[in-house]
């Protein structure tokens, strides 16, 4: 039965509020303020997971984001469960359920552990060297590899939580609420900088917050008490915003930073609902102060990965902050002074410390003296050569170090313990600094990489800048901040600081053992199970760069991104290869600093807000008349209007027939419309379209084709000359924005001399198109006083008109080949006008038709749709539209490209009509066209671009592009489908009313 290892006095844990939670199905208790890790430790649970490769038992090792082992699955609900969450960062809440990962059937008995037995066979990157025979077996091998890999489980149902974004602009951003961050925030805010202070913990103060030790005092009070007062004072600063539970995820160039604020993860299950779970702050800061502190390093020795082996500073936080004993007989193993702080804290709380094993010869610092005063046993110049205990450490083996530190001497001592604290010194958290593009420098005397040069307006202060002693931290931070903000803040002048000084330093990256290296397991990357041996193997095989070693051994590529392992990997590489660490350089730290949920990155841009939806003024009418809608770019366009249980084919056949037999009505509001004014408007059109415009009469419309400079068809549409210097251009629905942008580009950069202004009026006008033999009768009812005679109002002309006093423009143009009109009216009257036309047309069975019918009708006439019948490789000539290329014009966009050696070939793919031998057979759009089906490989001569069953011709028709098609009229060809071959004949592109009689019908 698990014992309770909680001691009474901890100010940060509310021991009156008991919280129940489940771990691996077992109900346990903790308190408000606990993390899952501290609560588990309080219940004497160390074993929480299995390692990635060997499935070795692993326990809680740290107390923050660097935790490599205690990675758990939170929750069991299919939509709300979350894999790979660090127990050291989960704040305990009522109803929390967590479970171990990567073990089966259970963390206590894990079948995968056989891998540990085979470990001699599976060194780093073994998989590159095997699983190759028999060749086709890889699929099978891979199946099992994949099953055993991976850690937690993905949710299997959509997330119910809400995520959000917020942009934030500030003068100064301070990252980290430790002692130096507090000083920075206070200084900035007091000097009228609009300041933001963020910290990933739920409370400010960093590690100083629980530093109650004679050796660390400021103005005669414990450093923690001094800091608490400082934090109190922050409240009064109005320029200061403080965000806790907010973790800086990414630091991009131009001081653009992303921070994730956790809003509900710490709340009881029933309190979480309908609240934003996480908010991603998109921060633009004028100045950035990084005060992210440092991480304690482990030590690398044989079997250094057993449950119960923890970072010494974490043991200290668990006892001082959470009031939790990580064990009852604790040994400490160190190469520096900080383990002695832990020793003192432990013995002050009545936990017996077996001994401190210190690889150094001695240390006379204040803190060590104090430890000795408390009677703590110290083994100087010793190292741990092995540890015992499978699911939890139960003893360590100690030996004396040789003078050069490369071997061990003397006889082995065994020391029983239920917890081992290790301390390998400190690593500044320079991740954000390097993310931002900053360059690092190496400091030899304590082997740390420090911020050096940066392009951005930023500084690093405190221990992330290499200041580890209390007096350095405060004094240097104050100076750096004043200089950085160009202020003179004297709050912190002449502070009296007591601080222990570490003079004696010694570091051994890979500690020696009495066994040959090959027989030991000194772990570097605990989660990915890569050892010092693996790194040495990689080097032996010629993988020299840190990036190679990292990728070959996977060191530093686990979910902790090597926070604890990178430095030792570098150290061992440098040592083995005999190069200076400074010259070796470090790996690049990539965003995010800690893993970031996809949800937070996406925010509320999901579902309805995944992408913009554009609607026409008449949209509601279509919806009310059960239109099916088609996505055209961001637009919703009426696709077809099924009646009763009509399917699309039936509806389209009916609509198409009605449009030609009597009257159809189409919502064309989505077409792009550009208002063109200026004395050079005509010249401008001459340059952007392939045909000539100067001679277009006022009141007339003309179809135009627009090319790219590469000569390929880009867009098309009808442009109307409203008055001398005033045109209205229409573009395709999809092309509208690009066309306007392209034309503005030419005006501003190539032809600034032209007096032309372009204004988009796409949304200002609703466009109602009426077509069919009865369209004239209907329009005459809608606008009685407009003379519609062919003489007064011929095809391809326009009139201004009034409908119930509302100005509108009526164009007599046709995309269907029928007699038809387009009425442009300001959008607010669009729906009403549509209804009016519909009413007027009732007696003629006016039929609303959608895009599908429109496509069919225009195909009967052989009109192209840019983007469907063209694909960016078709010239006007290819489209058999030579007539639209002005021979007279000196130049227009794309003209020169039409005369390149390939574009002038006359056997290019060309637009043709296609008829199937079987008139009922409708070709598939995209189907390929061939002449020769026998000999392989089959040569493809073209493909079907548009294909429909025409109710008006009562046969299948298609448009296609075919190599040398112009010359092949009447040629029999084949369309080979998967299961059959369809016989077709090449025809003219116009299938209906070749003489255009219907236009004036």
């Amino acid at each position, binding site marked *: 039965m698990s014992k309770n290892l909680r001691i009474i006095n901890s100010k940060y844990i509310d021991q009156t509020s008991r919280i129940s939670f489940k771990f691996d199905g077992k109900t346990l208790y903790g308190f408000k303020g606990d993390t899952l890790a501290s609560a588990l430790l309080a219940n004497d649970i160390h074993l929480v997971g299995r390692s990635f490769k060997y499935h070795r038992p692993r326990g809680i090792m740290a107390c923050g984001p660097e935790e490599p082992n205690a990675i758990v699955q939170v929750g069991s609900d299919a939509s709300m469960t979350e894999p790979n969450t660090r127990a050291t960062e989960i704040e305990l809440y009522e109803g929390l359920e967590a479970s171990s990962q990567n073990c089966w059937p259970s963390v206590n008995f894990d079948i995968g552990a056989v891998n540990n037995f085979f470990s001699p066979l599976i060194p780093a990157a073994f998989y590159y060297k095997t699983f190759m025979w028999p060749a086709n077996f890889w699929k099978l091998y891979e199946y099992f590899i994949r099953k055993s890999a991976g850690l937690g489980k993905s949710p299997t149902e959509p997330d119910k939580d809400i995520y959000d974004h917020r942009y934030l602009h500030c003068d100064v951003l301070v990252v980290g609420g430790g002692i130096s961050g507090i000083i920075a925030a206070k200084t900035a805010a007091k000097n009228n900088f609009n300041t933001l202070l963020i910290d990933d913990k739920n409370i400010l103060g960093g590690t100083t917050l629980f530093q109650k030790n004679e050796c660390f005092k400021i103005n005669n009070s414990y450093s923690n008490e001094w800091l608490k007062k400082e934090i109190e004072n922050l409240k009064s600063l109005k320029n200061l915003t403080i965000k806790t539970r907010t973790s800086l995820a990414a630091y991009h160039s131009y001081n*653009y930073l992303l921070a994730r604020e956790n809003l509900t993860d710490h709340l009881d299950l029933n309190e979480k609902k309908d609240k934003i779970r996480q908010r991603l702050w998109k921060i633009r800061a004028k100045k950035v102060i990084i005060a992210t502190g440092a991480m304690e390093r482990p030590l690398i020795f044989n079997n250094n990965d057993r449950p119960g082996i923890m970072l010494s500073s974490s043991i200290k936080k668990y006892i001082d902050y959470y009031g939790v004993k990580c064990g009852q007989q604790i040994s400490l193993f160190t190469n520096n002074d900080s383990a002695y702080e832990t020793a003192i804290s432990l013995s002050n709380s009545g936990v017996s410390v077996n001994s401190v094993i210190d690889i150094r010869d001695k240390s006379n610092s204040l803190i060590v003296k104090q430890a000795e005063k408390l009677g703590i046993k110290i083994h100087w110049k010793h190292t741990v050569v092995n540890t015992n205990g499978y699911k939890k450490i139960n003893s360590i083996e100690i030996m004396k170090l040789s003078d050069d530190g490369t071997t061990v001497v003397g006889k082995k001592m065994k020391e029983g313990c239920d917890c081992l604290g290790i301390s390998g010194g400190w690593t500044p958290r320079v991740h954000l600094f390097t993310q931002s*593009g900053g360059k690092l420098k190496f400091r030899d005397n304590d082997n740390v990489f420090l911020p050096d040069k940066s392009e951005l307006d930023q500084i690093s202060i405190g221990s992330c800048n290499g200041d580890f002693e209390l007096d350095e931290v405060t004094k240097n931070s104050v100076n750096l901040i004043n200089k950085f903000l160009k202020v003179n803040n004297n709050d912190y002048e002449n502070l009296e600081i007591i601080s222990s000084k570490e003079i004696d330093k010694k570091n051994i990256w890979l500690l020696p053992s009495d066994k040959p290296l090959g027989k030991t397991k000194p772990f570097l990357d605990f989660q990915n199970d890569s050892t010092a041996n693996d790194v040495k193997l990689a080097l032996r095989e010629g993988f020299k760069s840190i990036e190679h070693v990292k990728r070959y051994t996977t060191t530093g590529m686990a979910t902790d991104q090597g926070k604890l392992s990178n430095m030792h990997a570098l150290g061992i590489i440098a040592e083995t290869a005999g190069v200076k660490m400074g010259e070796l350089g470090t790996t690049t730290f990539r965003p995010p600093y800690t893993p970031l949920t996809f949800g937070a990155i996406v925010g509320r841009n999901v579902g309805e807000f995944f992408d913009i939806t554009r609607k026409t003024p008449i949209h509601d009418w279509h919806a009310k008349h059960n239109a099916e809608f088609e996505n055209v770019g961001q637009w919703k366009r009426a696709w077809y209007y099924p009646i009763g249980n009509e399917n699309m084919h039936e509806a389209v056949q009916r609509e198409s027939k009605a449009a030609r037999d009597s009257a159809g009505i189409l919502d064309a509001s989505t077409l792009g419309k550009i208002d063109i004014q200026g004395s050079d408007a005509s010249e401008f059109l001459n340059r952007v379209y392939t045909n000539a415009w100067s001679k277009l009469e006022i009141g007339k419309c003309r179809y135009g084709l627009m090319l790219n400079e590469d000569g390929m068809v880009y867009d098309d549409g009808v442009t109307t000359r409203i008055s001398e210097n005033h045109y209205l251009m229409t573009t395709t629905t999809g092309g509208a924005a690009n066309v306007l942008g392209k034309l503005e580009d030419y005006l501003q950069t190539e032809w*600034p001399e032209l007096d032309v202004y372009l204004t988009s009026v796409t949304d200002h006008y609703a466009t109602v198109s009426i077509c069919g033999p009865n369209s004239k009768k209907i329009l005459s009812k809608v606008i009685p006083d407009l003379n519609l005679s062919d003489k007064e109002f011929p095809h391809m002309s326009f009139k201004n008109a009034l409908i119930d006093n509302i100005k509108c423009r009526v164009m007599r143009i046709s995309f269907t080949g029928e007699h038809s009109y387009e009425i442009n009216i300001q959008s607010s009257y669009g729906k009403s006008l549509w209804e009016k036309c519909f009413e007027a047309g009732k007696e003629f069975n006016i039929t609303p038709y959608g895009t599908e019918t429109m496509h069919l009708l225009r195909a009967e006439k052989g009109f192209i749709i840019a983007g469907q019948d063209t694909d960016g490789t078709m010239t006007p000539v290819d489209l058999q539209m030579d007539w639209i290329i002005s021979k007279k014009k*000196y130049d227009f966009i794309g003209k*020169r490209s039409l*005369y390149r050696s390939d574009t002038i070939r006359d056997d290019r793919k060309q637009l043709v009509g296609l008829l199937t031998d079987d008139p009922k057979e409708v070709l598939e759009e995209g189907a390929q066209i061939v002449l020769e089906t026998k000999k392989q490989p089959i040569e493809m001569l073209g493909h079907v671009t548009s294909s429909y069953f025409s109710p008006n011709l009562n046969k299948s028709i298609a448009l296609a592009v075919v190599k040398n098609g112009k010359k092949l009229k009447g040629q029999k060809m084949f369309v080979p489908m998967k299961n059959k071959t369809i016989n077709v004949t090449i025809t003219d592109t116009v299938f209906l009313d070749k003489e255009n009689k219907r236009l004036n019908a």
Partner: protein
Amino acid sequence: MFLINCPYCGERDQSEFSAGGEAHIVRPKQPTELSDDEWAEFLFMRKNIKGIQFERWNHAHGCRKWFNVIRDTSNDKIHAVYKMGEEPPIK
């Protein structure tokens, strides 16, 4: 995300702009006089500089004006902006 100083509107977030590639590639006044090679040079061939590049940007979601930017493509640092038709402030 860059901060780009539009010569007309001032400093704005990159998302308001669209990039237009290498600057000062003048469209030939008389394309028909050019050989296929010369035309291809204008159409497709680019310096694609690593280092200081003169390039075009458009404040597409602001004033819709095109302008020039001098940017170091090896570290994305913007050294200067100037209007169309103006001489580069830095050579």
